[in-house]
């Protein structure tokens, strides 16, 4: 801004503005806005490590507690692995989802995002992708530790695919519901109450499919659960994508 412009009388400056080129702000591309939100979330988390450290510590504690609480033989351990894993992922995921949206709300940043001239679905997808990324990072850290403690090989391509599909569905629905719950004073309690009933299909399918892979069941037995996971991901991501604008609106 030039010093001259500051000193000009306001009316004159207003006339000058009216004759100027259009404002610099323009509607951002959908993809550009989505990527900006993801990169911002990752950069902020890289600095604070608040969210990832909380999720990781919680996950490891749950795995350790189950390990000592269930003194089982190897065969039985295989049987409970899928349930223990998804209980860990679901609770750690909820922790991350709550924190991720609370960061936006506490300093008014959610308003800052909503004031930008972008499609709000891009904001939703950006938040959902960063939430998914945080879940996957925690899962990647938990799996080898779990394999070591329980003496079960979890690093199988089929099982990894199930974890990815389950996490996508969980993050997609969780991001939408965390945007709903963030306005409530009791958001920490509200999110799991809203999320778990809606996430029941994805959790059941993920546990069944994971259990199938761990028991070396034929693919034909696992396929229906994989199909359910894919269907859930597509349907619920689409619904959340369409509803986000209404959810964040006053």
């Amino acid at each position, binding site marked *: 801004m030039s010093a001259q*412009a500051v000193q000009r009388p306001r009316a004159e400056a207003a006339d000058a503005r009216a004759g100027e080129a259009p404002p610099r702000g323009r509607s951002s591309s959908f993809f550009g806005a989505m990527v*900006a939100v993801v990169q*911002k979330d990752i950069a902020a988390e890289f600095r604070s490590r608040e969210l990832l450290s909380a999720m990781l510590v919680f996950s490891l504690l749950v795995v350790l507690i189950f390990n000592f609480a269930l003194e089982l033989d190897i065969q039985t351990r295989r049987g409970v692995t899928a349930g223990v894993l998804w209980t860990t992922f679901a609770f750690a995921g909820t922790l991350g989802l709550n924190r991720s949206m609370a960061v936006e709300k506490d300093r008014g*940043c959610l308003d800052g995002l909503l*004031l*930008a001239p972008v499609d709000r679905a891009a904001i939703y997808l950006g938040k959902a992708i960063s939430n998914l990324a945080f879940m996957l990072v925690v899962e990647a850290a938990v799996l080898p530790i779990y394999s070591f403690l329980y003496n079960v090989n979890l690093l199988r391509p089929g099982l990894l695919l199930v974890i990815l599909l389950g996490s996508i569905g969980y993050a997609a629905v969780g991001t939408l519901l965390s945007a709903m719950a963030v306005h409530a004073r009791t958001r920490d309690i509200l999110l799991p109450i809203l999320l778990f009933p809606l996430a029941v299909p994805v959790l059941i399918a993920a546990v069944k499919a994971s259990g199938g892979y761990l028991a070396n069941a034929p693919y034909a037995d696992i396929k229906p659960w994989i199909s359910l996971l894919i269907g859930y991901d597509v349907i619920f991501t689409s619904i959340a994508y369409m509803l986000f604008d209404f959810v964040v609106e006053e």
Partner: protein
Amino acid sequence: MITVRGLVKRFGMKTVLRDLDFDVNPGEFVALLGPNGAGKTTFLRILSSLSKPSAGHVMVAGHSLPHQASAVRARLGVVSHLPLLYGDLTAEENLRFYARMYNILNAGARIEEVLQLVGLLDRRGDLVRTYSRGMQQRLAIGRAMLHDPDVMLFDEPYTGLDQDAATMLDGVLRNVAGQGRTIVMTSHDLARAEVLATRFDVLSRGRIAASSTRRALGKLNLLTFYKRALAG
């Protein structure tokens, strides 16, 4: 620049804004005054497209709300008592993020220009959470004017600022207004509003109870004008 006709806003059974009419010409600096609960923040949230009106017509910068909200947002800058900034990012990273959200060309130069204007160029690399409240508020103004908006809305920008920070904010606001932007500011600080604004509107019980330009106010004290407006 802003035209509001018959605006009504209800939250459930409670009516916050009642048949409100409001006009702002280009380049005007309007101080929107009123007691707590008068509806000032709700009104500004509607003007900024964050809240939808229950009834009535709202036009900002030639676009109607809520139908052309995206076009309005591109020409609007909003500053509230919350900074709308990420504490774990530096000032520059915050502005760079918003520059991407507003699709600003030549963002680097514009960010430098804005940081210079709000006097934070030498602290550009510091995390925002290490800033004082006053510095955060100045950066919030920088964020709001990054995309060179025609209209700026300030919702209680002086909340929580000490005397020095408030005086510094006065200077920034004068600069912003001097560029010919249209400004609407809500405030409880009548002394500051009297110095900065060119027009004073008093919002009471969901309606504009009184409106006067500084010239029309003449020798009448703003506090007296305000009290008379509230007395009805």
